[in-house]
């Protein structure tokens, strides 16, 4: 690198304006002055050209960076969780305010309260409490599906570039790998599989596929039945190709379920009851048939 001393040379004055000239931040008169100088000074013109090219190239390099496919879905999920938490807090605060009014009337000192915080990714205990609260209104057999969806799909960091469908299928293992193309073929086109694996939660093993439509997360959760578990006591939403599908709502989540003699299967999302059920209806017959063939 060399240093070129400009002193009082006209170029020195113009070079002070070059950055603002490139950004179109100069007053009209100054802009004209720069333009006139550039017409007669190849060195300054080259300098402007060089800086302009670096600006354009660095801009395109930054803008070419890929965005995690599920980023928007995760941001929306975080906003929804926060809204629910705020809503619960508002209701609780209203009740507390009412108590305060009574307490003040009775000259009783009221303890301070604090806003319940959302669990962090690393806060496993907080997540369990969150899941317990979210699924409190569900029957025990449906809690299983919602629990794994929140535990594994919501409280998770997804890789920036999801693995390919083939890689995910391999990760599921030979017994379940055909589920990936099967599910992919039956969900609406805008849904992409971003996770397919076997996982564990609360001592159970799950086959778990997570999908996103860009704004919401949806899970297909499958687990082996434990003794005595059945969905038959629940109210049937509909029978699809001979498969009974059940659905219930807990907070913002909808949990649709169906079963074989060995497996419980769930479609869980926050898409709304109608949309969640539509996807469950689309998946139930073929997933049921697939699971009925899994014996080992």
């Amino acid at each position: 690198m060399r240093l070129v001393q400009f002193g009082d040379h006209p170029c020195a004055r113009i070079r002070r304006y070059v950055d603002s000239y490139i950004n179109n931040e100069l007053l009209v008169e100054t802009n004209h002055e720069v333009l006139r100088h550039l017409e007669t000074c190849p060195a300054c013109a080259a300098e402007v050209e060089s800086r302009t090219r670096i600006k354009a190239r660095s801009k395109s390099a930054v803008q070419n960076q890929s965005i995690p496919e599920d980023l928007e879905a995760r941001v929306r999920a975080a906003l929804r969780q926060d809204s629910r938490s705020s809503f619960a807090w508002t209701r609780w605060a209203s009740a507390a305010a009412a108590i305060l009014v009574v307490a003040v009337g009775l000259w009783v000192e009221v303890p301070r309260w604090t806003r319940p915080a959302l669990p962090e990714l690393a806060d496993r205990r907080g997540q369990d409490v969150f899941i317990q609260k979210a699924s409190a209104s569900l029957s025990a057999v449906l809690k299983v599906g919602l629990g794994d969806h929140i535990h594994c799909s919501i409280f998770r960091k997804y890789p920036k570039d999801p693995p390919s469908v083939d890689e995910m299928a391999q990760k599921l293992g030979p017994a379940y790998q055909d589920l990936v193309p099967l599910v992919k073929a039956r969900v609406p086109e805008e849904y992409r599989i971003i996770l397919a694996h076997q996982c564990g939660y609360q001592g159970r093993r799950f086959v778990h596929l997570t999908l996103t439509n860009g704004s919401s997360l949806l899970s297909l959760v499958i687990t082996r039945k434990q003794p005595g578990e059945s969905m038959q006591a629940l109210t049937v939403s509909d029978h699809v190709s001979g498969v009974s599908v059940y659905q219930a709502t807990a907070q913002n989540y909808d949990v649709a379920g169906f079963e074989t003699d060995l497996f419980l299967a769930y479609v869980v999302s926050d898409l709304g009851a109608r949309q969640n059920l539509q996807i469950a209806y689309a998946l139930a017959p073929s997933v049921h048939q697939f699971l009925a063939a899994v014996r080992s």
Partner: protein
Amino acid sequence: MKRQDFEEAALPHLSDLYRTATRLLADSTKADDVVQDVYLQAWKSFDRFEVGTNCRAWLYKILFHVVHHHRRKWFNVRMVKDSEEILDQVAVSSDPILEHLTDEEILCALDRVPHDFRAVVLLVDVDEFSYKEASAILNVPIGTVMSRLSRGRKLLREQLAETAQSYGIGKGKLEGRTA
């Protein structure tokens, strides 16, 4: 304010915020955390946002606030003094031949520019904010935006030239350039 209103106003800027956060932190995982944090903070203060004003600039202001706090947690931050002057002496470095450099190499060079200069380069050159908007986002005077932009561009050019020269590209291209 409904969450739907917030999402309609704020989510279209998600990609730009993520890309800028990634370059500010030189780490996509941290950027991921930061961007989620930005949206949660923005949502919590959305009742104070005036509809019809510049939502993008408002989100970037929150982004820089969040990044500042995360950086204090993650790094030993070396603050840059605001007295960066545009020198009469103009550093003339070898001009990198940009066509031969990949996006990855350009991003690496950008990441080596000190944070406060890089921030202005990103805001003005990449995100196309005006000096006035960048000044409001960073909460610094317009003169500081201008001096950091000038210095940041020079530092970026030097880093690009170093990268190019390490590949034997563009060596001495500008030698002999004088005003």
